[in-house]
């Protein structure tokens, strides 16, 4: 991964408590998995930012190697990768996602 791509990713992660790398944007998700993930975050009142990986092939490839995770979407809380669509869905069902978000925003 080129240094500027890594710096870009790390910069965005530092700036945003909750950052979601997705296909498309929250209004117009370009993939069912990204859509499902956004719907879960929309059910909370916490702010989140998104990055559209379709707009930048370098970020799209870069984020996969950054997190060692082969698919999009990818959700980061406090700069830490917490999961893709399946894991977020499961965490949400178990009530764990609410706990993680609360802990992050209570700090």
């Amino acid at each position: 991964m080129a240094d500027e791509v890594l710096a870009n990713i790390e910069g965005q992660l530092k700036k945003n408590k909750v950052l979601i790398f997705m296909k498309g944007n929250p209004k117009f998700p370009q993939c069912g998995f990204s859509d499902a993930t956004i719907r879960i975050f929309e059910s909370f009142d916490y702010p989140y930012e998104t990055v559209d990986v379709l707009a930048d092939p370098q970020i799209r490839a870069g984020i996969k190697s950054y997190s060692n995770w082969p698919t999009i979407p990818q959700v980061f809380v406090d700069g830490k990768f917490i999961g893709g669509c399946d894991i977020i869905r499961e965490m949400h069902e178990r009530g764990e996602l609410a706990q993680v978000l609360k802990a992050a925003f209570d700090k």
Partner: protein
Amino acid sequence: MINPDEIRSTLEKTLPDSTINIQDLTGGGDHFQVLVISPLFEGKGLVEQHQMVYGALKEALGSERIHALALKTMTPEQWGRLGS
């Protein structure tokens, strides 16, 4: 496209003694739902468990022979609790 049997044999090599359930969601051979129950998942978080499965299927995912993979992982203990 990939045959479900190939997914199974690939996973069994990396995760021996697992119980694996594979569903071809569309019948097209590239959208799958996979459940893996493995004792090797014991003590690991979900991210790490999924990374183990993705790692095993790296070639098929990278070449887009598998286009979409809905994944569920659990330990035999978690699986046992589900039934009770």
